[in-house]
């Protein structure tokens, strides 16, 4: 299961704090990659 799917599952399971953490992690990883590619 990838991070995005995991975050969406947390949301569906109403585990909102975990969902926020996971969405934020995806954002950080994505930004690193984005900055690297730029």
């Amino acid at each position, binding site marked *: 299961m990838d991070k995005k799917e995991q*975050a969406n599952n947390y949301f569906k399971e109403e585990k909102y704090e975990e969902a926020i953490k996971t*969405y934020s992690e995806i*954002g950080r990883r*994505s*930004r690193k990659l984005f900055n690297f590619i730029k």
Partner: protein
Amino acid sequence: MDEDPENYLILSNRSATYIKLEKYEEALIDAAKCTKLKPDWGKAWGRLAGALHGQGKYDDALVAYNKANELEPNEVYVKMIAEIKQKFNEMKSKLVNESLPAEMKDSQMGDLFASMFDTVVDNPKIMEKLTNPDFQSKVLSMQSNPIEALKDQEVMNIMMEMMKGLKTK
């Protein structure tokens, strides 16, 4: 996260999650970024509307819900728009029934105010102003000293807007 244009979905989902947690300020920040990254995406405006709605900023929420519904018609947005308009109606009734003193309600001035209030239901900016307690006390002070109250530019502007509404009815 806002630098990567592909992250609009993550921002949207995180905004929805913040809304669930009633953290409306954070939800608003994510939703606003989302609308910048994807301005033609109805859901981004829906998230923005949800955050504003949660903050009680009904007039701005109404604009955002309308934008969301315009881009992607959805019965949820229609329901929210109706809910906010209902809220404005309730505010109007509350203002007319509770805020105006009895002697004013029973007078011709009260009738005039009641009909003016009818004209502001579709004008959320005025409605918001009229529900502000500080502004209400300025309006109520018109009873004892109307000339003085009308010297206040804020009162004057709102009165002019309300009068315009009366003329076009």
